[in-house]
């Protein structure tokens, strides 16, 4: 097991290095110069040139990369061009929005999708199955910004139950903060849940066709017990895989929804930074998100070992 974990960790580090280099090069190859963006159409050309100098953008790319990487290893991601504060600090101030949002959405996704998927599998080709599949199809087809707006229209404008957007921070209390995140989390989780329902359904269906399930049934075990105890655990591997991937996508989805709900999260930070060519922030956020996804995948890999002893034994 230790070897298995060690190999995973090495792969994790290599992936992160590759991602960091890729992000660094891509944001710099993009046409568009941060100094020109800051100065816009009204600042003078000379002023933009002086700003370029001051930001150190005239130095060779390799030098800039090595400096940035060395800083990143020490936990220093540089300073934001727009806000003039350390990037690490900026990410930390946005996390209390994006992280709970992603977790709430993930919770919503799992709580809705897994039972619905199992239910659909047990009702294969019957009314319950079809209804579940139609709901899932809707979830996949409706763009997130649209479902977000519909939710705002219903719950804020018509019913007036929750605020239409914005986030006052956790210092204003846990309940108002959670309330502000509820609608976006549902909008965000809905799409992901729709995908996960399908994955769960087909995974459970596959297992239900296995011989040992037939054996269990033949033994006279209760249908619910067969599904929940015997089939479900073995169906978990594909479900966990998909859920892990979905978790990464939640962060990407947050970029859109944070704009719709005016939430000061990581996604909007990244979007604004790309538009303003705030290179240190783009790099910092991309590296951070990539790290999260890599860590989630790592956790999924490790979870396989627990779910399926065969994987554990093969590796060691």
């Amino acid at each position, binding site marked *: 097991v230790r070897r298995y974990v060690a190999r995973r960790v090495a792969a994790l580090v290599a992936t992160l290095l590759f991602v960091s280099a890729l992000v660094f090069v891509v944001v710099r190859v993009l046409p568009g*110069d941060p100094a020109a963006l800051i*100065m816009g159409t*009204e600042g003078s050309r000379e002023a933009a040139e002086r700003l370029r100098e001051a930001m150190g953008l005239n130095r060779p790319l390799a030098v800039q990369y090595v400096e940035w990487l060395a800083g990143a290893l020490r936990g220093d991601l540089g300073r934001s061009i727009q806000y003039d504060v350390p990037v690490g600090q900026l990410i930390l101030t946005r996390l209390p929005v994006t992280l709970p949002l992603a977790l709430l959405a993930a919770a919503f996704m799992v709580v809705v999708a897994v039972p619905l998927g199992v239910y659909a599998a047990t009702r294969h080709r019957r009314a319950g199955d079809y209804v579940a599949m139609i709901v899932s199809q809707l979830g996949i087809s409706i763009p997130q*910004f649209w479902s977000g707006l519909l939710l705002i229209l219903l719950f804020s404008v018509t019913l007036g139950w929750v*605020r*239409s957007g*914005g986030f006052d921070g956790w210092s204003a*209390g846990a309940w108002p903060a959670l309330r502000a995140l509820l609608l976006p989390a549902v909008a965000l989780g809905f799409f992901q849940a729709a995908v996960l329902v399908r994955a769960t359904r087909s995974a459970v269906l596959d297992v239900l066709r296995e011989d040992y399930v037939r054996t269990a049934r033949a033994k006279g075990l209760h249908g619910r017990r067969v599904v929940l105890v015997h089939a479900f655990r073995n169906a978990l591997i594909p479900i966990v895989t998909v859920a892990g991937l979905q978790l990464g996508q939640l962060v990407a989805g947050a970029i859109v929804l944070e*704009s719709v709900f005016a*939430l000061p999260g990581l996604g909007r930070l990244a979007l604004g930074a790309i538009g303003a060519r705030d290179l240190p922030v783009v790099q910092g956020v991309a590296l951070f998100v990539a790290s999260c996804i890599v860590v989630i995948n790592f956790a999924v890999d490790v979870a396989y070992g627990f779910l399926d002893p065969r994987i554990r034994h093969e590796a060691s």
Partner: protein
Amino acid sequence: MMPRTLVALLCAALAVAAAGGASAQPQALVLQAAVEPPGLDLTATPASATAGVVLYNVQECLVKVDRTGKLVPWLAERWHTADNRNYTFFLKRGVRFHNGRELKAADVKYVFDRAMNPETKHPYPRDYDAIGDIIVRDEATITFALKSVNANFLHNLARQGSVIYPREAVETMKSHPIGTGPFRFEEWVRGDRIVLVRNRDYHVKGLPKLDRVTYRFMPDPNAVLAALKAGDVDASLFGLGPEHVQDVQKDPRFTVIVGDTTNDVILAMNNSRKPYTDVRVRRAVTHGINKADVLKGAMFGLGKILGSNVDPLNPYYVDMSKAVPFDPARARKLLAEAGYPNGFDTVLKVAPQYYYTVRSGEVIAENLKKVGVNVKLEQIEWGQWLSRVFRESDFDLTIIGHAEAWDVKNYANPKYYFRYDSAKFQELFAKSEVTLDDKARGALFAQMQKLMAEDAPVVWLYMHPRLAVAKKGLTGFWKDLPVPSADLSEVGWTAAR
């Protein structure tokens, strides 16, 4: 213990929630802003998002452009000049910065010395080119000695780059601006809001009317509309899309403000690139465009059709909108004369960040097809637009709004991105810069506008309207925007509320 803490927390949360709906208090205002300022230092960024928060609210200038576009004394209560070369300003007494210190003439000298120093990376160093020397006479008197007569000098002192701040705030202005304005900066929660509070020592008695102003950053126009209707924001000064105007006008809870701005939306042609080097082609393109259609398609008919780069808020404005009218037959004839009887292919680059450029472009492409010019619409991102189109002049056609007041000066700069190079225009403009007599200056501006229409270096499409919406009961907003400011000093709720 735990449950009790939780209950206490919940109670506190509820109390905050009950008190926190800022719009429920009469003298607080929640404003929507589409774009978060990149920083709050007006001497470091030309961003209009920054001016929308800071200019005239937190920081002020020696002179001010009022809501009608007139120049009025402000931190300087009067000024005097005998020769149009030496201007002496007499500062208003007893004006205090938000840090409590009194404004002195030495502060003014410091601000302009710093603006003129290239090391400080001021965005508008050119505005102060005319200044030769700044002499502090006494604590409240200061003289600017100009190198030569300059007609824009006073106006430049009212611009966003000329705000007066205390020397000790220089390092922190990017995140915490200090000035003499009606509101003091309270907090900036990055990505979410900026809060200003009333300056109790404001030097204008009775102002401001509001105790607290919160700018909320909401980029999505549909979400803005929802927030207005849900009562989460009280007003949107720049975020109302023209497509929503009718809908909001019908709603008795709101007042819609449609006003003028200095934002001229133009179809720029690259005057240094064929076929636009030929004035006949440029005139043909102008004749080929139905500006009324463009205005309808892009702005739902709101705004004003333009015929030159002098906007209706300018005192020297002459209506040139009919000088080169929509006339497809004439356009085809001019193209044939210029050697393009079958028209030509061209690329129009637009940045969808400004949605009106795309909408205008679609109508223009349709218009020009009918006179034989095949326009390929290419959407590029704003960062690319700035470096490729604006800096390198790598384009055939492009659409953009020029928001600055008095920006005819760009047509006298042959290196400006559309590369209009007319010795005659440059001469007229130079003369207008040193002509102080109002009538003579007006005559020069009239000549410039006529020449612009004849030379057709760009197609002036329309003035971007000022579209704002506020809850009924809110008064005091500016209708027109002669400067990119959201002056809130006179805004307040009527008692009826």
